[in-house]
Each structure stands twice: as structure tokens, then as C-alpha cells.
């Protein structure tokens, strides 16, 4: 991995969220894998430093193996609990507090869902929950929609990162609205991490080319025919998009321009 590290060190700086430093700009969810072995292999291949987890009841009647901690070493990956499935600010706050109690950190990926069919966020609930959690010392990464105004309010409310969606959770429709994502990035100072909707590598690459700080994805890898190979593709694509953004692309031209000299031709 020496070559890899050198690349990063030379060509990009780490992503900083709150005090935290993350080397990979790709964050992965841990849901929906056919089995835990595939999940761990894919997460490893992706080179991610941070994975999200959900808070759910212990199943008292099933084997204890189900807990994700039996498969993910908290020393190897930073575990970021989410509040997925919460439909009110109060509910989300309750889940966040329970997650913090597990004792890994005060970080939380905040979701307040507004509609079961689309899983789109309820921005009023997001703002209320963000204010509450920030006042309790949480570092809040907020999943939100593409609305700049809401994003600005979330930053004012103290969110550590704002995470607009590319398209609905699990849809794989890709970056539906690059304009608004660029807009949010251009106006906020906290890190912007695009969360949800990426379906394939070019979606991740194009998303990073908008200048955002990172991407969070789950289904695109877990539901690929070959999750491990797709994880590797996403690792490359995320870095490619980031480097292309930093490199500064060539200008588009409506006319062609030769790549070979037009002089020195034979008679």
C-alpha cells in the first residue's frame, strides 16, 4: 500500500470532520450484504476508514452472532451510528443517545425520515434534532436533501458535516442534481458528504468532481453482483473524481483540436 499512501500524501490531503481526520473519502454502510464475510471483504477492499451502523434491539431468541461488532473490529474502522428509521426529532435523539452509550464516540449520522416510500428527510425534524444533539455535545453528520437553505441552517445549527443525497436511498439513480450539490458545496464551510443514491462507479466519480469532500454509500456495493469488486471500483472512482477535481479539467470545446502537430507534414 506504500504507493497508495504516497499518492494520497502527494496528491490530496485527508478529510477533516470536526477534529477527526479521515484518509479515505469513501464512507460505507454495513447493511444489506448477503453475508458478513462479504461485508467485511468489501469494506476492506474499499479502503474506507469509517462505516455506519444502525441501532436495533437485541434479538433475545436468536444467536448472539447478529451483532455487527462480532464482525467489525472497532480498532480497524471508525463506527458511525445512524438514526435510520426515525421519523421524528425526538425518536432520532433517543437513538443517538443510546448509540453514544455504546461508548465508541459522540459521533452520529442523523436521519429524520419524512416519508416511508421515498425515505426523504423531514427538514424541520432534522433542524430540531441537530440543535438538540449539538447542545448535548454530539458531533452530528446530517443526511439531508439538495436544498441549499436547509443546508445553511444545518450548518448554523452546528452540524459537523452536511450530507445531501444524490438520489433517494437505495435507488441507485446517481447524481440527479449536480447543480444543487455544487451550490451547497460553494456556500457552506463544513464538509459536504454526498449520502445515498450513488449506483455505480461513474456516479461516485462524477459526484466527487463537483468538489464535495466525500461520499457515503451502501446499496451500490452491497447489491452489486460482485460486491467486493464493486468496492474496489468505488475506491478507485472516489479517488479519481477527487483527483480530477483537484487537477482541474481541460476546458470543453465545441470545436476539435488536433493532438498531433499540424506542421512537419510531408509533401
Amino acid at each position, binding site marked *: 500500500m506504500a504507493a497508495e499512501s504516497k499518492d494520497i500524501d502527494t496528491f490530496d490531503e485527508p478529510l477533516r470532520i470536526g477534529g477527526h481526520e479521515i484518509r479515505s473519502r469513501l464512507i460505507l*454502510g*454495513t*447493511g*444489506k*450484504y448477503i453475508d*458478513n464475510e462479504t*461485508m467485511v471483504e468489501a469494506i476492506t477492499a474499499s479502503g474506507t476508514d469509517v462505516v*455506519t*451502523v*444502525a*441501532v*436495533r*434491539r*437485541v434479538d*433475545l431468541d436468536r444467536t*448472539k452472532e*447478529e*451483532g*455487527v*461488532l462480532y464482525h467489525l473490529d472497532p480498532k480497524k474502522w471508525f*463506527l458511525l*451510528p*445512524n438514526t*435510520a428509521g426515525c421519523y421524528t426529532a425526538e425518536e432520532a435523539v433517543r437513538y443517538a*443517545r*443510546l*448509540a453514544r*452509550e*455504546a*461508548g465508541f464516540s459522540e459521533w452520529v449520522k442523523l436521519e429524520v425520515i419524512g416519508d416511508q416510500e421515498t425515505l426523504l428527510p423531514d427538514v424541520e425534524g432534522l433542524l430540531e434534532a441537530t440543535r438538540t444533539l449539538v447542545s448535548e455535545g454530539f458531533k452530528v453528520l446530517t443526511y439531508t436533501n439538495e436544498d441549499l437553505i436547509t443546508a445553511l441552517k444545518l450548518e448554523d445549527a452546528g452540524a459537523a458535516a452536511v450530507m445531501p443525497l444524490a438520489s433517494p*436511498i437505495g435507488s441507485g439513480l446517481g447524481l440527479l442534481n449536480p447543480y444543487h450539490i455544487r451550490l451547497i458545496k460553494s456556500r457552506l464551510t463544513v464538509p459536504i458528504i454526498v449520502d*445515498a443514491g450513488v449506483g455505480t462507479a461513474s456516479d461516485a466519480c462524477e459526484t466527487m468532481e463537483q468538489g464535495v469532500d466525500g461520499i*457515503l*454509500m*451502501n*446499496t451500490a456495493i*452491497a447489491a452489486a453482483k460482485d460486491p467486493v469488486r464493486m468496492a474496489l471500483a468505488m475506491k478507485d472512482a472516489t479517488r479519481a473524481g477527487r483527483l480530477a477535481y483537484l487537477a482541474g479539467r481541460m476546458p470543453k470545446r465545441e470545436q476539435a483540436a488536433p493532438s498531433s502537430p499540424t506542421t512537419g507534414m510531408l509533401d
Partner: protein
Amino acid sequence: MSGDDAKITVTINGDEREVPAGLTVRGLLAHLELQEGTVVVEWNREIVRRDRYDDVDVTAGDTIELVHFVGGG
């Protein structure tokens, strides 16, 4: 006859269950064969810190939530 086998009914994770009377939270986790490290306990809507597992008694009618981390996005 002794109270050793006395039972109380509590609601755990939404289901009513009979558990031995006189358990603390720590005792309850042991009874349920749950490894402490990975579980978080909410007792009557209030989170119980690990260092208070011995101080909190489980009594009849308590509502207890036992949660942990699972795969999620």
C-alpha cells in the same frame, strides 16, 4: 418454601417476559446471557450507564430496551 424461584413480569424489547425476582440490570443481562460490552440498556425510558448496572433493580412492570449495533447504511 423459598422465594428463590419467584418470578416477575417485565417488558423487554416489546415482549412481556417472566424473569426471576430481585435481579439488578447486571443480573438480568447475565440471566439473558448477554455480553455486557455490546449491549446498551434503556430502563423505563432512561439509559442505564454500565457503572450503574448493580444499582438498578429490575422490578415488576418495568419496560426495558436492550439494543446493540447491527449492519446499517
